[in-house]
Each structure stands twice: as C-alpha cells, then as structure tokens.
C-alpha cells in the first residue's frame, strides 16, 4: 500500500532526518531551528548535532567548512538564497577551493540549504533566483529539485557527496504534494530527467518553471504540438548530454528560467547547445527568463516580470516558425 503523498518541504526534511539516522557525522544547524526541546530534530539527534545559531551566515558557513574538513557533514539551514550573499566568500572562495588547493588532501562535504524564488509579494530582496551565481564555480555543486521525490533524492545525494553542494528549494513549491519513495532514495547529482516525452520541440525548465513548462506542453498538445520537457535537476554538474540528445531529436529548443537573462542557467544551456548541438537546430534557441529588474512588490508588476505558460507557448510558436529578425 503506497503511503500518502508528502509535501516538497516534508520530503527534504525526511531526507535530512534519514541521513542523520544513517550517518552520525551529519549535522544540521542554522538560525531559528531547535529553539525548544520539542523540536523533532533536536529530540532525535540531540543538541550537539542540531543547534540554533545567531544571524551570522559568514560564521555559520565558514564553520561548516572547518567542521567538514575535520570529518563532519554539516547541513546548514540558510532559509533564503539571498542570505548567502553576505557570506559569499565562504561559499565560492573557501568551501569550493579547499580540496583543489591542498592537492587533494582534504574534502568539504557541506550542504547549504537555501530557499529561493519566493515571488509572492516578498519584494526585491527576498525573491531572487540566483543559482546562476553559483554555476561555474569550480568545486561547487548546485541542486534544484522540482518535485517532492526529487527533493528527497537530491538532498540525500547532496549529503552523501564529498563536495560542497548548494541545495536550492523553491518556496512556491513548499507545499506541493507528490509521491515520495519511503526509505533510502537517491537521485544522483548531475542527472537530468525527461519529464514528458515529445517530438516537435524541447522545453527545458528549471525548478519552479518545470511545472510551467509541463502546463504549456498540455496546452500545446491540444494544438497538435508535441513538446518534450526536460528537468536538469542539477545545474552543476550540468547534464548537457540529455539535453543535446533531445535537441537532436526535435531540432528546436526553448529554455525557461526564473532568473534574469544574463544571470540564468538558461543562458548557459543555450550556449552549450549552440556550441555542441548547432547542427541539430532548425531555429534559434528561445530563452524565456525573468525581465531584467529587481522583483517588484506590487502583484501586477511582479507577474509581468516572470515567465509564465503564455510566454512559454509564444516562445514555442517562435521556434516552430521563426519570424524574420
């Protein structure tokens, strides 16, 4: 008998809990967690492995690196991606470089858990999609699950990986329910998923935009357009092979990303396909990204900025019959 579906956030916490049970070197700490004795993690694993920290991201992340080098596997609860920015040095200039610069002597198995993309009136400083800043950082891995099952599987893989991983979970997906395998469930980092098979066009979505892409694909099917939807699931390392294989089949590519254009994973994917799969393309690649602006507070403006199904459908029509420039 299959169990009840879990919410996305529940799947992530289940992964952390199960990994903490399996491996006593896994730690979980951050701001505003475990402040009372009936916190479930605190009850299960005690105050050594589960702690509350002050608002000190720089110290929290730097400390995670030091503990990791000394043999522990910290998961740092950062809540929002933007809260990493004050401590960027520790993320992209310390954690990722240790193994390399020591000639392979030490490793840094750290997971930085950070929510993103909370475009629901949270205004300019809490709603960004900034995973692009962390791609291409040598030694750093970046996971972006779009479903509860993948959220659990990728968190498990992230904790087990011996490298620092930034684990971005989308805030608007927090309570999305889905089937989540019970017990050990690993989704390897660097492996994309074909979320929907099709033959006329490839749509790559990331995180929250995967759902938008699937909805657009339904709409397009009614018009007789068969869209294949791909979810990379990990942005670094990026599974370009799966994307290229799909573009070889369909010849047309639309990439949907909630980031701003030049800070997007979409731009990276488009560049990869343009350089490695050019001969497959029957039309220029279309990017559906957020407009180049800080996310505004007021709702009509917020909607205007972001990708949506209509924009995706438009982009698909563009690649199917490109108008002259």
């Amino acid at each position, binding site marked *: 008998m299959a169990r009840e579906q879990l919410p996305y956030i529940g799947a992530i916490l289940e992964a952390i809990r199960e990994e903490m049970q399996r491996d006593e070197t896994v730690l979980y700490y951050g701001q505003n967690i475990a402040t009372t004795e009936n916190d479930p993690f605190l009850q299960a694993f005690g105050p050594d492995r589960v702690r509350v920290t*002050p608002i000190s991201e720089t110290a929290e992340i730097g400390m995670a690196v030091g503990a990791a080098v000394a043999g522990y596997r910290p998961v740092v609860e950062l809540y929002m991606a933007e809260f990493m920015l004050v401590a960027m040095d520790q993320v992209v200039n310390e954690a990722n470089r240790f193994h390399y610069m020591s000639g392979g002597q030490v490793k840094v198995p750290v997971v930085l858990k950070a929510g993103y993309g909370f475009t629901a009136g949270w205004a300019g400083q809490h709603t960004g999609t900034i995973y692009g800043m962390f791609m291409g950082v040598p030694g750093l891995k970046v996971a972006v699950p779009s479903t509860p099952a993948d959220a659990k599987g990728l968190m498990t893989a992230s904790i087990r990986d011996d490298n620092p991983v930034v684990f971005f979970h989308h805030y608007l997906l927090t*309570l999305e329910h889905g089937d989540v395998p019970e017990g050990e469930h690993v989704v390897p980092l660097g492996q994309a998923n074909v979320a929907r098979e099709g033959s006329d066009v490839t749509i790559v979505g990331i995180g929250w935009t995967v759902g938008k892409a699937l909805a657009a694909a339904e709409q397009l099917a009614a018009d007789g357009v068969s869209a294949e939807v791909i979810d990379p699931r990990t942005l670094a390392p990026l599974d370009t092979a799966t994307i290229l294989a799909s573009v070889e089949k369909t010849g047309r590519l639309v990439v949907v990303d909630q980031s701003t254009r030049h800070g997007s994973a979409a731009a990276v994917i488009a560049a990869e396909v343009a350089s490695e799969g050019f001969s497959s393309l029957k039309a220029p690649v279309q990017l559906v990204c957020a407009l180049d602006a800080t996310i505004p507070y007021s709702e009509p403006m917020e909607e205007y900025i972001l990708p949506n199904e209509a924009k995706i459908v438009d982009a698909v029509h563009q690649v199917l019959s490109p108008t002259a420039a």
Partner: protein
Amino acid sequence: MAGNGLDKERLTWILTQMTRIREFEERVKGTFEEHPGVIRGHTHLADGAEASIVGSLAALRDDDQLLTTYRCHGYPVALGTDPKALMAEIYGRSTGICKGYGGSMHLTDVSRGFMGTSGIVGQGIPHATGAAYAAQIRKKGQVVLCFFGDGASKQGAFHESLNIASLWKLPVVYIMENNNYNVVTRTEQEDANAAAGEPLAVKAKAFSMPGVTVDGGDPLAVYDVVSAAVERARAGEGPTLVESLVYRLSAHGNIIVPPGIPLHFPEHEAIEVFGNVEEYEAAKRGDPVPRFRSKLVTDGTLTPEEADAIAQSARDEMAAAVTYGVESPFPAPDDAVKYVYA
C-alpha cells in the same frame, strides 16, 4: 526628571505620534481580516516600540536623517509622511510612497530624511554609516540615526560599521531596539553577552564607543539618552550605541506560507513557541502607549478629553488611510521595468 525642558506642546506631540503609530499598526493587522489578500508577503509591526521610536525621533532636527530595518512603519508615521501613502504602499498601489515597488519592508521618504530600509538583518547598518560619512563632509551638522534589532548585533556588518564610525567620529547614533527575540529565538540562545546576563550595550567597548541601556518603554527616558547622543554626534565627538529595551506586542510578522493559504498574525512567540503566557501578559500590562497617556493625564499635562481626542483623531485618520489604500489603483504592469537604473 526625564524629559526636562519639554513643554506641553512637545509632550502632546510625543503622545500623538505614539498613538498614531499604534493605530496605524492595528489597521495594518486588521487588514488581514477586513480585506484578506490585500497585503501580500510579509509585514512586521512596531506595536510596543512606539515610545522608543518617538522618543528617538523627538531628538532630531528637520535636516537629520535615519535608516531602519524592515520593521519600518512607525518612523515615517511619526515623521509626518501621509499615512495614506504608507498604507497604499503596503497594499501595493501606485499611490504608495514607493509607487508599489517596495511594500511593507521597504518604506522610504527621502523628503523627510527617512533614507530607506534593508530587508536583510544588519545590512542597513553599513548604509547608515555611509550616510553619516556624507553628513560629516557636507558640514551642515546633520546627524544620522541608525535603527536595528538585537539580532543584528551578531552580524559582521554591525561590528564592521561601528568600528569605522568610531574611528572616523561619524555623526551617527546607533539605536538597537532589543526586544529579546529574533523570530522564534530568544536572545540568550544566540548572544554570548545575553547568555552571561549582561546588557548588550557592553558590545560598545569593542569600538571604544559609549554604550548605554535605556527603558525603551519610557519615551522621555529615550529622549534624554538619544538627545545626548545626538548632541555628541553633532559636536563631532562621534557615535554612541544606545540599547533601547522594548517588547513587541505582535508576533515577528504574519505567518509565512505560499499563496493559497490566508495570511494572518499568529500569537506572540513567547506564547506560541515558549508557552510563556505570563511574560506576554506582563508586557501588555506595561504597554507604553496607555502608560504614557496615563502619565500625561495624571500629571495634568492633558485632560482625559484631550487624550481621548488624540485617540479618536488617530482612529479616523488611519481608517481613512485603509480606505484610500483599498480604493487606490494598481500600477500598470509594464511599470515593472522602470526605475531599474537612474
């Protein structure tokens, strides 16, 4: 005696602003029930901190400046910004003080010296420090007030800023509103000084800066301490760290959930998380707004009728702000791409 030298007009002004702030915050909170869906995202109220806010602002000259945290509604209300424009901003309307671009956490009124906020704990402290540097070289004797919470004092930005301000003798007063909570964490769980039972003002020693703790529930005590710090700053003698002890009467903010689930204010964390009803009840008994009203009435500064009139006027004013807000138009969608660059 605290507040010596303040005449009836000034004392009345203080009570009026405290009352107006309280009423404004009550109406913001009430919007969640009366007009669900109108306020989106996260809003943070200053009910309980009115004495600290107004006592501090009472020490300012017209050309002084301030920067605050995302718990920012009270300051522009007291400075004289039209509450209609503030409420409209919180409701995301084009008539808002920031034209709907900022929302509750990012109110700004440069015309009155309210230079802005940050939604990221502690990161406004360096901003205020820079404004004080500009004030210093502008040589008009301006002073900058920098408001932040106790949680921010664990941020590197706090330490880095106070060190520079002290070194450069910048004309800034750092006002830490210590309400003993950082969301669901109590200060002694995260601060080595609090854990040792010390006032947080001791942190000033690290910067060779005066540090003073004051009862943030008494506007006249706050006024005395902040005025002295402002005069010190204005005289070119450098910054001061003021620890103002307050109790916020609402929870940290409205609950945080994805769209589809109605937003509302939960109970204060003292009750909801720590089960400490007595602490909260005691704070309510010591509510600074009725306390100050009582003081002015019992010592004859105001008659009960005058005090009632202030309260009624505030109620009318803020009700009108709500109406104005809900009736205001939204911005045009493509306004979204304006103001990206100057």
